[in-house]
C-alpha cells in the first residue's frame, strides 16, 4: 500500500515535472504544422473562392497574433489612438496581412520549404525556414511569442527584412501625414484590390 502511494506520488510529480516542456509543442513544430496545412489547402484544387479564403484565414489566425503585430506596427501611434481606432486597425491589418501572406505562399506553393534551427529565449522564439525555388533559396524566419501552450507569430523576416519593421516605418509616415482616416482609407482600398486579384487567379 505504501508503495502504491509512493508510486502515485512519483508519477504525479513526474507528470508535473514533464508537463511544461511536454504540453507546449516546439515552436518549429507549430510553425511547420501551419505552413504545411496552408500549402496542402492551396494544393487542394477542390477548394476555391470564398471557402478557400475562409479555410486559409482560420489557419493563419490560429498562428498569427495580429494584435501584437498591430501594436508593433503602429508603435507610438498605437498609444495615441482611441480604442475604436485600435480595433479598426487590428481588423484591417489582419485582413491585409492575410491577403498578402496567402498571395506569397500561393506563388511558392509548388516549391519546397525546409526548416532550419529554432532559437528559444524565455517566451520568445525564432524559427528559420527556407523556401526553395529552382536555384534560389529564400530565407524566411518567423518570430514567435509563447502564450499558454501555443506559439504565435508576431513578425516574419524575409531575406533579413522584417516585415513588421517595414510596415512600422511606412504606416508611421502615413499616419503622420494623413492621420488614421487616411491610413484606413488606403488599407481598405488595398484589401479590395488584393481580394479582386485573388479572385481573378482562382477563377482562371
Amino acid at each position, binding site marked *: 500500500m505504501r508503495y502504491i502511494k509512493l508510486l502515485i506520488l512519483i508519477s504525479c510529480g513526474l507528470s508535473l515535472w514533464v508537463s511544461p516542456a511536454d504540453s507546449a509543442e516546439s515552436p518549429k513544430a507549430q510553425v511547420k504544422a501551419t505552413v504545411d496545412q496552408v500549402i496542402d489547402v492551396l494544393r487542394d484544387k477542390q477548394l476555391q473562392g470564398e471557402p478557400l479564403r475562409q479555410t486559409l484565414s482560420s489557419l493563419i489566425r490560429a498562428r498569427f497574433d495580429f494584435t501584437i503585430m498591430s501594436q508593433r506596427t*503602429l*508603435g*507610438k501611434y498605437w498609444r495615441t489612438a482611441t480604442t475604436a481606432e485600435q480595433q479598426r486597425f487590428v481588423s484591417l491589418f489582419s485582413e491585409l496581412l492575410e491577403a498578402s501572406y496567402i*498571395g506569397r505562399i500561393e506563388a511558392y506553393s509548388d516549391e519546397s520549404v525546409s526548416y532550419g534551427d529554432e532559437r528559444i529565449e524565455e517566451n520568445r522564439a525564432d524559427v528559420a525556414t527556407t523556401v526553395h525555388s*529552382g*536555384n534560389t533559396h529564400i530565407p524566411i524566419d518567423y518570430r514567435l511569442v509563447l502564450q499558454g501552450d501555443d506559439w504565435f507569430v508576431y513578425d516574419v523576416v524575409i531575406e*533579413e527584412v522584417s516585415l513588421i*519593421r517595414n510596415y512600422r*516605418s*511606412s504606416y508611421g509616415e502615413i499616419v503622420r501625414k494623413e492621420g488614421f482616416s487616411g491610413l484606413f482609407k488606403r488599407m481598405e482600398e488595398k484589401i479590395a484590390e488584393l481580394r479582386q486579384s485573388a479572385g481573378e487567379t482562382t477563377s482562371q
Partner: protein
Amino acid sequence: MLNIHKLVLSLTLVLLFGVCGETWAANDAGETKPDSLSATEQDWTQLDEDEEELVVWDPIEPFNRGVFWFNDKLYFYALKPVARGYRAVLPEPVRESTSNFFQNLATPVRVVNALLQFKGRKAADESINFVFNSTFGLAGLFDLKVVQPESADGEDFGQTLGHYGTSPGFYLVLPILGPSNARDAVGSVADSLTHPVSSPYYLQMKQLEIIGARVYQTVNHLSLDRDTYESIKKEALDPYLFVRNAYMQSRAARIDK
C-alpha cells in the same frame, strides 16, 4: 556621364530591394521591460532592445519619387516584356547557367571587398570557388560549390564603407539603377573599377559592350525572377516607402555580417 552598365545592374537591385540611404535612431530611451513579463503584459509598441528604429534621411523625396515612377514604367513597358520573350525562347537551365556565369565573373569585386574588411575566410572561399568554377565549371556556367561559404551574400564597396562606419547618407533613387544612397552610389563606382566587364585595367571592353553585357545580365536575371516587384506593388500601401525601408534593412543586415 551616366555609367549605364552600373545603372542597369542597380535597377535590378533596386527592383528587388531598392537601394537607399539609411540613418539609425535609437529606440525611445528609458523604457526597458523586464523579461519576466508575459506576452499580454508586455509593451509591444516598443521594439526589442536588439532592434533599432530605422529612420531614413530622404531630403529629396519628391525627386526620388519621380525617378521611382520612371523606373516603374521602364520595368513594366521595356525590361519585363523583353525578359518574358527571352524566357519563352531559352529553357531555364540555360538561363540558370547564364546567371552562374555572371555571378562567377563578379568574384573579383567580392574578393577585393572581403579582403578590405579583413574577412580572410570569405575571400579564400570565394577564390577557391572562382578557380574551380572558371575551369572545371566551364567559365562559370556551372556552380560546382567546391566550398560552401558560410553566408551567400557577397561583399561590395558600399558594405566595406559601412563596415568602417560610413553612414549611408541621403536616400537616392537612381534612374534605371533604382534605389541607392550616397554611400552605396560611391561604392558602385568603386566596384566598377574591379569588375572584369567594366574595369578599365583588364579586359578593357568598349563602352557599348559593357552596356550590352549589363543589359543582358539584367534581362537574364529578370527572366528567373518570380515577379518580386509585382508582388511588392500589389501588396504595399506605398511601394516607394516599402522599397526604401526594405533596401535599408537589407543593406544594414549585410553590413553587420
